[in-house]
């Protein structure tokens, strides 16, 4: 067999090459910056872990069942916080979702503002919101509800607006053609198309909010996080073990049912 040379590779434009080289350089620079900049105190950390490992891990794995009552009550409060917060967000996100949907607000500008508000809300980590609300309404679970509610509006509003933008306008037009008024169109044209997906997203957000609300207590916003804070400060690792177990079980159960309900709805 005669060894033939390959045909030339298709030309890559010089700009593309420069762009690629630039991206590689930037990535390298970021990593250099990262590893030069970070200061990890290995000695101290290793000394600690060698001392703590044998103590903390076994305790974590043998939960302190005497705290079951307290932990359950706390976990229940966490569920309340998440539920109330998600519910509020699911309602409050409606106007924002419609506002941010281009086919509803009718103007690119208004939709743009709506989208901007929503992504601004999303940029605030839940816990930061919780801190603000704790300052505002005091150290209690309601601060947590507000934090969850505001935090969820950002995501739900965005998802809602995407659903609304995907509405089949043909059905709406057909109804307009039959002389239906705006309210009728809303009830018969829009809502049947969007309600299942709205609900499904709200339930999905509830899954996320259960996780979120279980740490709110770390900044004083109620729920099981309060117990986590105490257990950690007092180094009550047996109690922490039980808390951990409670979170794992509750989250797993809620994820399971949420997934089933969502599959049924959509």
């Amino acid at each position: 067999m005669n060894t033939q040379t390959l045909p030339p590779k298709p030309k890559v434009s010089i700009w593309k090459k420069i762009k690629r080289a630039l991206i590689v350089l930037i990535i390298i620079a970021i990593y250099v910056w990262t590893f030069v900049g970070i200061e990890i105190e290995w000695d101290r950390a290793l000394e600690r872990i060698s001392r703590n490992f044998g103590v903390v891990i076994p305790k974590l794995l043998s939960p302190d069942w005497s705290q079951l009552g307290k932990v359950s009550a706390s976990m229940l409060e966490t569920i309340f916080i998440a539920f109330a917060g998600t519910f509020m967000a699911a309602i409050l996100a409606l106007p924002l979702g419609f506002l941010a949907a281009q086919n509803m607000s009718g103007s690119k500008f208004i939709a743009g503002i709506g989208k901007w508000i929503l992504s601004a809300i999303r940029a605030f980590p839940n816990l930061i919101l919780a801190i603000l609300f704790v300052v505002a309404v005091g150290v209690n679970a309601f601060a947590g509800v507000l934090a969850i509610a505001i935090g969820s509006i950002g995501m739900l509003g965005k998802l809602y607006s995407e659903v609304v933008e995907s509405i089949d306008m043909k059905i709406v037009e057909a109804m307009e053609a039959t002389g239906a008024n705006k309210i009728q169109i809303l009830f018969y044209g829009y809502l049947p198309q969007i309600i299942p997906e709205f609900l499904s997203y709200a339930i999905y957000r509830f899954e996320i909010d259960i996780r979120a609300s279980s740490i709110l207590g770390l900044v004083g916003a109620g729920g099981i996080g309060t117990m986590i804070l105490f257990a950690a400060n007092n180094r009550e690792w047996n109690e922490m073990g039980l808390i951990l177990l409670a979170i794992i079980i509750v989250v797993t159960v809620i994820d399971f049912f949420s997934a089933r309900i969502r599959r049924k709805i959509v």
Partner: protein
Amino acid sequence: MIEFKNVGLVYPNGTEGLKNINVKINDGEFVVIVGLSGAGKSTFIRSINRLVTPTSGTLLVDNEDILQYRGKKLRELRTKIGMIFQNYNLVKRSNVLKNVLAGRLGHTGTLRSIFGMYKKEDIALAYESLKRVNIADKIYNRADELSGGQQQRVSIARVLTQKPSYILADEPVASLDPPTSHQVMTYLKKINKEDNITTIVNLHFIDMAMEYADRIIGMRAGEIVFDGPASEVNEKTFEQIYGRTIREDDLRGEAEKVEQP
């Protein structure tokens, strides 16, 4: 040479894929297997490179029983048997050259292949193979940019790059239109004659089988019910294989012959 001796295959769910198969396929033959859907054609062909493993009997390839092969030995067996699939089985997002080079994987070290460091000869061989099936101009195209017939030609090139002694083709033209089907069969036949590669092809269409095969094996319910030269096939053998008379959809149909490469 491939020799089936009392070969049987029972799938884990109890289905009998092959029942007591005894057949010998000589070097350089172009054999076409025909039969109804579910007759066991794929099972037969896939036993030869051990994509499925017969549960009884002996299966000799080049006079060695391959049913005991495992690990490295099995991979070595597979490197000398090329396979062509109904759905071409290319990596759609990779370009044609990369797909064709995949035929050399069995001959290339793991590290070398992970970093894509193929030997110069391998790349030359891949290019040569592409030229043999007239698709060298697409060498840097992504596989999903090609038509079905072109993709099947790339997959033939992949097999050629493997430098096999045997080629197995499981319904290579089932997803193609008649002219393209004839084109692909013509390439397979040409390679069989030029390189003296034993070729076994599964086909649904009896007329195509008769046109290209040296020898036809008819299967029905896991058994061989006909084995003989294409010239011996007639209405009666057909009924033997299919259990009914010939129908329009058993025929692929004649197409004006496409360019002879």
